[in-house]
């Protein structure tokens, strides 16, 4: 049996700043893990010499959630998706593949102590309260598994419908849906992992000491730390960067 290919997928679309972030992320991963395979999914108009850092380049359009499309296009059997606005800070990045275990997908967890840094965690569904528990900032997944790949494709397609008012399952409250939920790929992720029969057998896990794999800079405001007392591996600048303002 062949050894499964393993690599990172980084997506940069819509805004040229994301291309700059992605270049930095690719270089920072390779600073600690020179053998890393990286696939950059980006728009052709952004490409310059710095894209050479990527081992594969796939062109996408300027979709609001090109990220989801990019995740479904991974050229690897096992993929670590990383949001472009992150920075790799630790050599343990090379051990990421050990985190998969026997899972099909592995995420960072939205916990109560972290919830103040997320747009929404709890929402009303079917007369009760439900919670988002998975954060899509990073995702390690078995892209060689056809069902996982189908999951990623569905995530993208269903999100499109959701965002374009073509899909709202029963059980949600219209007002909250329109205000808080329909814009989020998190909502689609929750639906697919919790309600979609087709995916009920997929094994979904959480990174061990998961804060290290998606350390939002705001976690530092509250002094949130790794349970093992180790430094972050991937730091996420999501809330602090001025994404729409030109870097230079």
């Amino acid at each position, binding site marked *: 049996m062949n050894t499964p290919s393993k690599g990172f997928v980084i997506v940069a679309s819509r805004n040229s700043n994301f291309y700059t972030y992605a270049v*930095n992320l690719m270089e920072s991963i390779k600073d600690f893990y020179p053998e890393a395979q990286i696939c950059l999914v980006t728009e052709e108009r952004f490409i310059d010499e710095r894209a050479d850092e990527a081992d594969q380049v796939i062109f996408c359009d300027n979709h609001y959630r090109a990220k989801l499309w990019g995740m479904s296009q991974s050229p690897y059997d096992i993929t670590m998706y990383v949001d472009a606005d992150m920075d790799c800070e630790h050599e343990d990045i090379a051990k990421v593949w050990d985190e998969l275990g026997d899972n099909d997908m592995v995420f960072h967890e939205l916990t109560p102590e972290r919830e103040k840094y997320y747009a929404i965690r709890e929402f009303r569904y079917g007369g009760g309260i439900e919670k988002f528990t998975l954060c899509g900032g990073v995702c390690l997944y078995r892209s060689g598994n056809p069902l996982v790949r189908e999951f990623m494709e569905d995530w993208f397609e269903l999100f499109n419908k959701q965002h374009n008012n073509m899909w709202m399952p029963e059980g949600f409250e219209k007002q909250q849906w329109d205000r808080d939920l329909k814009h989020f790929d998190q909502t689609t992720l929750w639906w697919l992992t919790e309600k979609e029969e087709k995916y009920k057998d997929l094994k979904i896990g959480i990174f061990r000491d998961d804060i290290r794999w998606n350390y939002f800079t705001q976690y530092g405001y509250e002094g949130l730390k790794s349970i093992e007392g180790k430094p972050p591996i991937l730091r996420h600048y999501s809330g602090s960067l001025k994404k729409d303002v030109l870097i230079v």
Partner: protein
Amino acid sequence: MAKIWLDNAFWETPKKQILNAISEEEVNNKQIRQVHKLSKFNDDGTPNELFDEVIEFLGTEKIDAATAKRLEKKQAEAELEKQKKLEQERSKKLEKLFEYKLETFEIEEIKNSKNRLLKSKLRRSKSIPEVNLYAMMIVKDALEDEHTK
């Protein structure tokens, strides 16, 4: 129920002239809890009876112990708050530093540089002066390269 004084009473001043104490008593079938700030002496210089009542009820040793415990707790809270503030400042500084690095990486000579080692050093810099230092080294390296071509 007769009036009782809770054993968490504490001295408000090191000279033990002001006492903070909580009393509990039942009046007309109602439980009354009251916080008192008691001076040792009244305005006219006579001893404050309520103050003496608390001392009599609890004893100074209990009040000393509660005062020490409270002080310890307050100091721990202040230390935690200080650490939290420090962490917050550190995080904000880190965010600014990251933006500064991204801006530096957009300098043409740095953007096009193939010097992985220096670029990595720049990326791992812990302060703006350190970023500037490595930026200068990369630009110098690029200019020398250009010169030798």
